[in-house]
């Protein structure tokens, strides 16, 4: 029977219509149910049933012909038989994934959340935040969860909370960055890339892909209802971001592309360096590093080519806001002023 999987996110709702491995489609609706906004005139169940009805009209399908699989992040199960989306996502073990959202971060190791406060809580203690404007901003997100917060503070908080998770313990596997935070990826590309680089701290080589439409949760829900390996059979259009090479303390890296160019790139301690490679272009890299040892590997270029990150990201001061504010501008400049080609 065809399957309609629905992900009830904290700030958006996603739908996946699955008929066969060749015939499937996604839709994303950038709103979610907020009891503070809607609770006085409509229940969560009616809200989401209303969205389902609209999506079915859009797709010209009859809901009765589909098996509905729903998943929610936390809190209320607004639809019947709603599963925990994170429990389902954790079972997807054939790739590394990190779900970044406005208020929570998850990966196969678990989930950490700093849910925004509501008027019902008592005294407000929030990471030592005492700026009343920021406090009000975060408080508003409990009423208007789709209001995307921009700026340094949100990403800093995501990083601080994500540090409690073990992220990317395995090199070279496909690493997928997904979640509602990806909604603002294109508008804040350099900041978004820096956030991703900051989250992946351990030394090594990582193949980073981004799920710009947050389709991963719906796929995980679909997978929970299918015996076969959904992801490997479906042509998932994730965006290849970069091959990320973490070399804390600095490194000399030989990069040989498949078009015959060859260059030694020297990256100093605490620097970020971008090596331009066209998307899909293959290259061989060789380096010798104090922590990684002798490394020889083949990579594929992404949107940013190859990024060599020589910052020591596991030290405590890296998480301190004063340290980050001091260096953030220079890090972002590197990402914004990308070189056009290898000489």
């Amino acid at each position, binding site marked *: 029977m065809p399957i309609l999987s629905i992900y009830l996110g904290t*700030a*958006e709702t996603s739908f996946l219509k699955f008929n066969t491995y060749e015939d499937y489609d996604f839709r994303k609706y*950038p*709103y979610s149910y907020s009891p*503070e*906004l*809607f*609770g*006085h*005139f*409509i229940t969560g169940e*009616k*809200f989401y049933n*209303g*969205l389902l009805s*609209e999506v079915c009209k859009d797709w010209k399908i009859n809901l009765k012909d589909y098996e509905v699989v729903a998943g929610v992040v936390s809190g209320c199960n607004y639809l019947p038989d709603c599963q925990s989306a994170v429990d389902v996502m954790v079972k997807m073990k054939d790739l590394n994934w990190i779900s970044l959202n406005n208020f929570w971060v998850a990966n196969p190791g678990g989930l950490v959340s700093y849910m925004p*406060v509501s*008027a019902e809580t*008592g*005294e*407000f203690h929030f990471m030592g935040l005492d700026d*009343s*404007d920021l*406090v*009000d*901003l975060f*408080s*508003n997100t409990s*009423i*208007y969860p*789709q*209001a995307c917060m*921009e700026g340094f503070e949100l990403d800093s908080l995501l990083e601080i909370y994500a540090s409690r998770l073990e992220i990317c313990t395995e090199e070279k596997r496909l690493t997928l960055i997904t979640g509602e935070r990806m909604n603002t990826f294109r508008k804040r590309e350099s900041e978004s890339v820096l956030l991703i680089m900051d989250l992946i701290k351990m030394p090594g080589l990582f193949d980073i892909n981004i799920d710009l439409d947050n389709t991963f949760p719906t796929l995980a829900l679909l997978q929970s209802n299918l015996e076969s390996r959904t992801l490997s059979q479906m042509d998932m259009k994730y965006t290849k971001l970069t091959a990320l090479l973490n070399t804390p303390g600095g490194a000399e890296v030989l990069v040989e592309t498949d078009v015959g160019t060859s260059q030694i790139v020297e990256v100093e301690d605490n620097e970020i360096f971008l090596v331009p490679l066209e998307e899909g272009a293959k290259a061989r890299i060789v380096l010798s590093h104090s922590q990684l040892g002798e490394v020889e590997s083949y990579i594929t270029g992404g949107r940013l080519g190859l990024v060599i990150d020589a910052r020591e990201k596991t030290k405590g001061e890296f998480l301190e806001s004063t340290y980050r504010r001091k260096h953030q501008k220079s890090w972002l400049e590197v990402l914004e002023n990308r070189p056009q080609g290898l000489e």
Partner: protein
Amino acid sequence: MKIPTLKKMRNAGDVLIERALPKEGSLVVKIGDKVEPFAKLGMSKASYGRMPMGNAVAIAKDKKLNDYFYCGDLIGNVLGKRITAPFDGYLVKEGEEYVFKQEERDYWLLSGVWGEVTGLVENKSVLIRTQTKNIHLPVCAGGNCSGELVVFPNPPTLLEISYLEKYAKETFGKVIYGGNFIRMEFLQRAIELNVAGVIGGSAGRSAFSLAKKEGMFLGVFSGFGRIPTPKYIFNFLKEISSRYVFLRGGENLLRVPIPYGEFVSGKTPEEFLVELTPGLRVQVFKAPYFGFGGVVEDVRGMNVYVKLDEINQSIEVEVPGVFAVD
């Protein structure tokens, strides 16, 4: 595309409101009686005024605890400050604290609503079936309260306290609309003046903490920080200033009784998704225009061009930074 609607103001028919005497007394209505806001429902004895004085009171010479004081009489000194009686009453002690309580007078319970008496609790309360316009308060601190609504005309900052003290003749027990933004100083003064509840466009989180601590009702129409009251809500409130209203903290509602005939009771349409098209009235939730209302001028994909009411200029905002308003 379709966007959700914020139904901030909704008509409600078949609403049951209980009006209760402060103490057991006598009721003068019976089941089936039709009432209007100034109809008398019953009477009891009640002490209107109350002035807590703390526990360090040096009572005036020739006076003692439980004595009667006329308005203007010296009650005593509190930490070196002379305190005179603001009304006729008695100095009593509640626990360790001194309290000056106004002498009991006849208290007539008025209906406050248009409707029909459907139930009675003998000598205590009256249940009235009525109809109301309910205005949503996304954030509230406090339980339930009611009182005469006083609407200040969205004063500029710093003037609202003057309005509170000089233009509201008697604020005791009233519900005050304090403007687009409720400042801490305004809220503090409202607490001191024994206002029943404060409503406004927005307030800081710290104001809610204060309201909760002091047991004062505080409700806002938009959210935290500096967000204006939607213009259509303010226009409605202006029309009903002096009306007796009910604040329901648990339901996040301001209930405004309305006369029969102002709307026809019936099922409110449940459509909450509307097509985003030019001419649609919307509210924007994207800095720096967070909470501003306006009308859609054009829609291009996910980008919406809105002419804002508050500043009479057009801005571009991306979905989901906009909701329809009903």
